[in-house]
């Protein structure tokens, strides 16, 4: 490659300032859009896949892995059956189990699910890159009738420490039966996590028992009793349990053991595996997004072709001059291809930098608000985009280049314009 041609191509681009700048802008915007979509999708995927982390196994009644994941982690849908307290304790004491946190679902507060659990939940539940839950205000519940709110619940309903609330039986948005007589006091509010925890209302297992004393099916008791005796409030069953093992090598055998429990029909799933399965179902929109942004990229490249082709006629003379000074048709061809790849490369580079800048600006907001992790330095994706766009730009340039080379041969060196 003739270095002088590179210099000429560069000067030619600078000379066409505005029109070159607009073409570069088109490529830049296309690349920025493409990379942003990729970034956000990667962020969504990772944050989805780490909705729950640090938990090795989730145990629930026998059923599908995705269903178990949906109700235990995403608080969507309902379990088919419960796990008896005996089974829970048996599993909690099984060899290899490090910790076990039960959860009990079925109630709600103004559309937000109530999670009955143990205070250990706040230490064991992890999300993202092993991030623990932390309290923005207050503390974990220590006795019955205390409630810890996820950040969304507190924000949307405008609750703060000390607010008194009632829980509802069932999970409908407009619930029909309230657990009257059981005033709960907000004792803690969690920091945002970007996970369903933000939309959960946490109480102790004993609280769940307490508010259900005297209930018969869906019918509320005439005279609600308020028991605080610990023995009376021991649950008979829980909805599911999060399990941590002492070593990752125990996970598979423990899972097999739970799945084949002789006393109760249980399912044990590894949240990572189930999350991946779930993503395969709901992640299809990803492809559509990618297709659209790839199309935009294509439009950006076509703008290179348009810009160069439309400039060709007024550059006929310039090409003839180059020919007269000894340039071969191949040199004229390379000049235009160089210009095209130059436009593409600059556009891609600026686009990559712009995306980095945008990410740097919004990343911490996205992290705190939506739990989206967009951080990351440019890597193989950016490198790949840079070379693909530059190469595709060069390819788009071959069309006007071919045209220019043909002109140059038929125009000769005439003085005509």
């Amino acid at each position, binding site marked *: 490659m*003739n270095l*002088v*041609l590179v210099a*000429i191509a560069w*000067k*030619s681009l*600078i*000379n066409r300032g505005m029109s070159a700048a607009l073409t570069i802008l088109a490529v830049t915007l296309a690349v920025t859009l493409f990379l942003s979509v990729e970034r956000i999708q990667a962020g969504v995927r990772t944050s989805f896949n780490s909705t729950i982390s640090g938990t090795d196994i989730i145990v629930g009644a026998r059923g599908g892995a995705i269903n178990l994941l949906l109700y235990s982690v995403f608080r969507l849908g309902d379990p088919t059956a419960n796990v008896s307290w005996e089974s829970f304790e048996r599993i909690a004491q099984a060899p290899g189990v490090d910790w076990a946190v039960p959860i009990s679902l079925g109630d709600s507060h103004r559309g937000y699910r109530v999670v009955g659990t143990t205070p250990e939940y706040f230490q064991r539940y992890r999300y993202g890159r092993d991030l623990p839950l932390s309290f923005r205000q207050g503390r974990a519940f220590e006795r019955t009738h205390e409630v810890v709110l996820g950040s969304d619940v507190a924000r949307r309903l405008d609750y703060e420490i000390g607010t008194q609330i009632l829980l509802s039986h069932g999970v409908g948005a407009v619930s029909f039966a309230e657990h009257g007589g059981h005033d709960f006091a907000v004792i803690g509010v969690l920091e945002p996590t970007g996970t369903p925890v933000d939309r959960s209302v946490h109480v102790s297992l004993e609280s769940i028992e307490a508010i259900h004393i005297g209930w018969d099916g869906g019918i509320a008791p005439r005279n609600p009793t308020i028991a605080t005796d610990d023995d009376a409030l021991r649950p008979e069953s829980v909805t599911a349990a999060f399990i941590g093992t002492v070593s990752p090598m125990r996970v598979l055998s423990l899972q097999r053991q739970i799945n084949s429990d002789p006393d109760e029909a249980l399912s044990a799933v590894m949240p990572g595996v189930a999350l991946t399965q779930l993503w395969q179902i709901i992640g299809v929109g990803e492809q559509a997004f990618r297709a659209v942004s790839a199309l935009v990229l294509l439009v950006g490249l076509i703008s290179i072709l348009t810009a160069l082709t439309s400039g060709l006629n007024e550059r006929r*003379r*310039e090409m003839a*001059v*180059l*020919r*007269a*000074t*000894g*340039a*071969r*048709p191949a*040199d004229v061809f390379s000049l235009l291809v160089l210009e095209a790849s130059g436009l593409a490369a600059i556009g891609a580079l600026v686009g990559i930098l712009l995306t980095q800048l945008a990410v740097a600006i919004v990343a911490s907001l996205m992290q705190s608000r939506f739990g989206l992790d967009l951080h990351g330095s440019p890597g193989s994706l950016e490198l790949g985009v840079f070379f693909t766009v530059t190469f595709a730009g060069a390819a788009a340039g071959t069309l006007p280049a071919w045209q220019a080379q043909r002109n140059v041969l038929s125009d*000769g*060196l*005439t*003085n005509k*314009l």
Partner: protein
Amino acid sequence: MKNSAVSISGLRHSWPGPGEILAIDEFEIMRGESVFLAGPSGSGKSTLLGLIAGVTPVQTGKIEVLDQAMDPAKPQARDRLRADQVGMVFQLFNLVPYLTAAENVRLPLAFSAQRRADVSASGLAPKDEATRLLGALGLASNIHDQRAAELSVGQQQRVAAARALIGAPGLIVADEPTSALDEDSRDTFLDLLSNEARRNEAALLFVSHEQSLASRFERFVDLQSINRAGVPA
């Protein structure tokens, strides 16, 4: 080795529209010779220069430049020969508008190793040789780094002449390079061009319909006297 810069024999050329334009049996320009070629408009002067410079392929006959054939079957060889041996100046629009005067002058060096070698043999860097030529053609140094598009027509023609001369090609062809100039700048331009061509021992083929300029050249040729085309037998 013959001593000719251009040697034409049995040349015939027709264009699709007007038909046969050129029919030249023998025509020769010696090395270092300066020739004034005259002829009415449309008589085929530019066509002949295009054939000599190897831009238009020869249809019938033979053209040699510095003893090498402008072979119609070998476009790349013609490009090479032109890059190495032919410097060209046109009537107008000689320059690449977004390059500076000095960059325009250096342009042929990018495409010809032979002309690069010639410049380095002179002991000057390409930049300095361009500066020297521009100076010799009467262009003040503050103009050298100006973009070609910003120069006056007279300045542009001198830059074009300097470019034709750089690297000492054996043949300079000039197609009405002065017709856009006023009388004074035309005379200066002609003096400078022929002086530099003589210094380089380059042959100069100068086309113009202004016959008053002919006295400055060693030889005067009327195209119609060597061209049988269009002449009723």
